[in-house]
Every structure is written in structure tokens, then in C-alpha cells.
């Protein structure tokens, strides 16, 4: 039942898992941020990622801008989308029962998926010649350069988020709103603006992740479903509302995915991931670093 790989393959696996995990973390970070702010899970999060990837793809195809340089564009476009979604939809369901909140974004997700297919066909798209591609050797072990760059960017993004939340006034206001909405508003913080900002940042994160993902993963209308599911598990494992939690959880999930596949069987990769989630969450229901 267990398969023991050679040392090289094992180390290669650990490295790949770590790199992928950083990307999972970035995708999950936004989800966590929104939940911390307003206790809403964005079930269209995967579709936001998909739109980020498509943005990068179209920048490449229409304007010959490599995904690497589309990062700010994707971030901006998705920021705008998040802002719009909050203003148009989320604002109206803040007090609604949880079911309505779930399905408001869920319906949005279905809509976005279908719109993508309608506009751009279900064909799989690929950035044919990205700047970052191919293998790179680290200590003699071969790993993918795109994954390396993506994870580096992800870590940078987390660092930026950390700086933003702890060192800037807006960021601290955001954090304060997340911790105690009423107290924050009593202190004069405009919670509505914080919410909108939160949605913007969350979507921008996922847009950036999408730009990097487009360098090495195929783009099609349903691509968001795969990554979205992992993102929910990542957020739950890290703890809803905890951004550092998403980083740790993302890396754990990335490692489990690869190691589960290497040591047990790739068919059960996600079984391993979900089992870990269940175990952690049953022993420690608020996740690793969650507040509830």
C-alpha cells in the first residue's frame, strides 16, 4: 500500500508541495480576510481566480503582455470586481440568514462561470510562451520555475499584507473592524468603507494569484472549481479570519497533497487533504489560528 520513493523524488515532492502550497495560501488569504471582516464566505472565490487567469491570458494574447507583468493589471481588475460585488450584492445580504449569504455568492459563481464560457468558449487556453517556464535546479533538484516565482510572489504578498494591516492606518482600521465591528464604528471607522476595501483586497489577492497561475496552468471556465475547493479547506484549516493561518494552512495542504500522492496514491491525494482538515477541525474546531 505504501510506496517508498527515492530520496531525490521525495525531496522533489516536498519542494513542489511547498511551492504549490504558497500559491494555495495566497488564494485562500482573500477568502479569510473577508470572513474575518463580515463572516461571509465568498463561494464565488474560485470564479474570481478564474477571471484573474483569463485577464492575464487576454493581456497576453491581445497585447503581448506576459503574465508576470499583468500582475498589477489583474490585481486592479479583480479589485474593481470585488468592490462592485460588495456594492451590488454583499451589502444587501449582510443581515440575511446564512443560507442566503451562501447562495448569493454561489449563484454569482455559477453566473460567472457560464458568462466565461459564453464569452470565451469552453476551450482550454494556455499562455503559449510565458517568460517563466521550464525547470530550475535548486541544490541539484529540478522544480518548476513558474511555481518558484509564484510562491515567491505569494510570500511577498503575505509580507505586504502583514505590513499593511499592522503598520498602516487603513490596515489597522481594517483589522479593528474585523475584530469588533461595533467598537470600530464607535471609534469613527467607516465600516462600510472597510468592507468594500476588504472585498477589493481579497479579490486583488486572488487576481494576482491568477496571473501567476496562468503562467503554467491551463485556463478554462471551470478552472476555478478545483482551486476554490482547496481554498475553502485551506481557510478552514488555517482558521477563518486568520491571514497568517492561511499561509501555514496553504503550505500544509500543498505538502499533504504531494506527499499523500507520493507515499499512498495520487488517486487519494485530496482524500488525505480533506481527512487532515476533518481531524484538525474536530480536535480544534476553530482551525489552527482561528478566532471562533
Amino acid at each position, binding site marked *: 500500500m505504501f510506496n517508498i520513493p527515492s530520496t531525490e523524488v521525495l525531496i522533489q515532492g516536498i519542494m513542489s508541495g511547498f511551492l504549490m502550497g504558497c500559491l494555495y495560501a495566497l488564494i485562500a488569504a482573500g477568502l479569510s480576510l473577508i470572513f474575518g471582516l463580515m463572516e461571509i464566505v465568498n463561494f464565488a472565490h474560485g470564479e474570481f481566480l478564474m477571471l484573474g487567469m483569463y485577464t492575464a491570458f487576454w493581456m497576453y494574447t491581445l497585447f503581448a503582455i506576459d503574465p508576470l507583468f499583468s500582475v498589477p493589471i489583474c490585481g486592479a481588475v479583480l479589485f474593481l470586481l470585488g468592490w462592485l460585488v460588495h456594492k451590488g450584492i454583499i451589502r444587501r445580504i449582510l443581515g440575511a440568514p446564512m443560507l442566503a449569504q451562501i*447562495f448569493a455568492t*454561489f449563484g454569482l459563481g*455559477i453566473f460567472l462561470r*457560464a458568462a466565461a464560457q459564453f464569452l470565451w*468558449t469552453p476551450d482550454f487556453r494556455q499562455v503559449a510562451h510565458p517568460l517563466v517556464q521550464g525547470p530550475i535546479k535548486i541544490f541539484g533538484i529540478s522544480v518548476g520555475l513558474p511555481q518558484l516565482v509564484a510562491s515567491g510572489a505569494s510570500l511577498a504578498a503575505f509580507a505586504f499584507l502583514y505590513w499593511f494591516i499592522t503598520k498602516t492606518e487603513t490596515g489597522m482600521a481594517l483589522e479593528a473592524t474585523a475584530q469588533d465591528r461595533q467598537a470600530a464604528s464607535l471609534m469613527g471607522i467607516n465600516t462600510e468603507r472597510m468592507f468594500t476595501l476588504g472585498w477589493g483586497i481579497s479579490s486583488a489577492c486572488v487576481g494576482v494569484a491568477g496571473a501567476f497561475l496562468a503562467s503554467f496552468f491551463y485556463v478554462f471556465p471551470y478552472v476555478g472549481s478545483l482551486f476554490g475547493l482547496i481554498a475553502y*479547506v485551506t481557510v478552514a484549516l488555517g482558521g477563518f479570519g486568520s491571514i497568517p493561518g492561511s499561509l501555514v494552512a496553504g503550505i500544509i495542504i500543498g505538502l499533504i497533497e504531494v506527499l499523500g500522492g507520493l507515499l499512498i496514491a495520487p488517486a487519494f491525494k*485530496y482524500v488525505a487533504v*480533506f481527512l487532515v482538515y476533518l481531524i484538525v477541525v474536530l480536535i480544534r*474546531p476553530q482551525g489552527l489560528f482561528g478566532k*471562533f
Partner: protein
Amino acid sequence: MATTGSAEEMKRERERSSRRTIGFVLMGLLIVGVLLFPVFFRLPYHRDIGIKILLYGLLAQAWNILAGYCGQISLGHAVFFGAGAYTSSVLQTAFGVNPWLGLLGGVVVAMVLSLLIGYPCFRLRGHYFAIATIAIGEIINTLAINWEFIGGARGLTLPIHKDSLLAFQFHGSKYAYYYIILGLMALCFYATWRIERSRLGYYLRAIREDSDAAQSVGIPIAKYKLIAMAISAGFVAAGGTFYAQYLLYMDPDSVFPLSLSILICCLAVVGGVGTLWGPLVGAAIMIPLSEFTRIQFGGTGSAVDLLIYGALLTIVAVFQPTGLVGLFRRWGGR
């Protein structure tokens, strides 16, 4: 109230009672329509839609018991559907057990499964619970794909027998299937209605509204959540067996997928979650809509049907969270 308002009061009372009469008449027509549906609609395709409405209405109603009345949002309910379908089918193909007994078997398996899932998971709150149900659903889906005994990815084909109620198979026309699923749906409906009016329903609603308060008042919330879960799972499993006998073929992708779990929730939400009629209304509207758009637009490959579906879902969730039933109630003046 002042005496000057009494004329208006009487007028309002008359309006209300006339609305109620209309309501009863419509209800009566509906019941007659549902009962006689196969008589008027003879084409297999129309009956298929009717059957689908009832089947998904059953699943949505069953889900409603747990989520709508008890407030526990499961996004992995398809596991019970698949459990029912596979149990009765495997019992049939491997051991020659009659599908009706298999149906009972499926219900039992699903209930046990639901307790195994619920017991640890009900400790989790809100979104944690929902995601746990997704996780479990995916785990079971993957296990089913890799389990050769039940057919694995290739699925299970049921042997074809001659038309008979005993063998739970009909080939010529669909009306027997229609009445069977109508019966199952009616049973679930009745169960929901009884629960709504019983002490169990009262406890479930208390748990939904504020489980901490309920607990402090002495209600054993774990026990009642499990009861709701088991009842819900049982009905879904019955639907699963029906599906298996209807299609005579199943594979993990058709009975365990996340998309089915989500569909069940959607129907209930659009119709009106936590209400008696909501799930059926949701199914009656969404299923034909889905079929219609698929036929009109789907063939050209442009996903227009899903576009409408998604938009509708969001709009209902945002503007009419109590669903269509809530809309009707408003019109009815309650």
C-alpha cells in the same frame, strides 16, 4: 381599534378571506393536477420532467428538514443519495435482493452514515460544518471511484427485468415511476408537516435560532440534530434508490458529485428554505427552467441556461431570501 376603522377592517377581512378561498382553490387544483399529471401529459419526456421535479423536490425537502428547520447547512447531501442508490443496487446485483428491500437497506445505510458523520461534525459551527460536509462528500466520491466492488469509475448497470412493480422497473411508459416518486415525495412532505407541528419541530427551530440558548434551556441539541440528520438522510437515500431503478445505471459522478449537493440546496433556497412548500416550489420552477434553457440554448454550446440559473439564484438570495414561498405569502397578505 376605533370604530371608524371597522368598515375598513371588514373590507380587509373580506379581501383576506377571498384570498384564502383562492388559495384553497388553487391548492385543490394543484393537487388534482399533480395527481392526474401523467394522464394529461403522455409524452415520456414530459413525464420525465414531472418525475424529476418530484425527485429533486423530495431531495430538497429532505435537505430542508435538516437545513431549513434545524439550521444545519449540509453541502454534501449527495452522499446519502449515492449511498441509497449504491446500496440497493449492489444488494441487487451481488446478492439478488429485491430493490424494495434494497430501498429499505439504503435508507438504513444512509441513516447510519448520517449518524457517523453527524456525531463528530455537529460540534462544528456554521461554515466549518458546511465545509466539512463538502470534504466528506468528496472523500466518499473518491472512495467510490476507486472501489472496484461497486463498479468503480465505470459504474454499475442494473440487470433489465420485465416491467413489474415487484422488480421496480418499467420500460414501456413512465407513469408507474411517476406515482412511486409521488408517493415518496408525499411521504416526505407529510413527515415534514408532522415535524413542523410537533415538539421535535419546536426543538429544531430553537436550535436553528439560537443553539446556545436552546442548550442552556436544557434541550439536548446533539440528539435532536442527529434525529433531523437521520430523517433527512433516509429520505434522500430513498430518492437515490428510485433514481437507480429509473436510470438502471449509475456511476460515482452521477450520484455523488458536489454539483448535486449544491443543486439540492439551490432548489430549496429559491423555493423558500424552512417552509413546507418551498422545496417543491423551487423544484417545480427551476427544473423545467433548466430543461427549457438547455433545449433552447444549450445545444449551441453557449451555456446560456447556466447564466440564467446563476443570476436567478443570486437575485432570489439577495432580494427575496425567504424564497418564492415568501413572495407568495407577501402577496397573500400574511
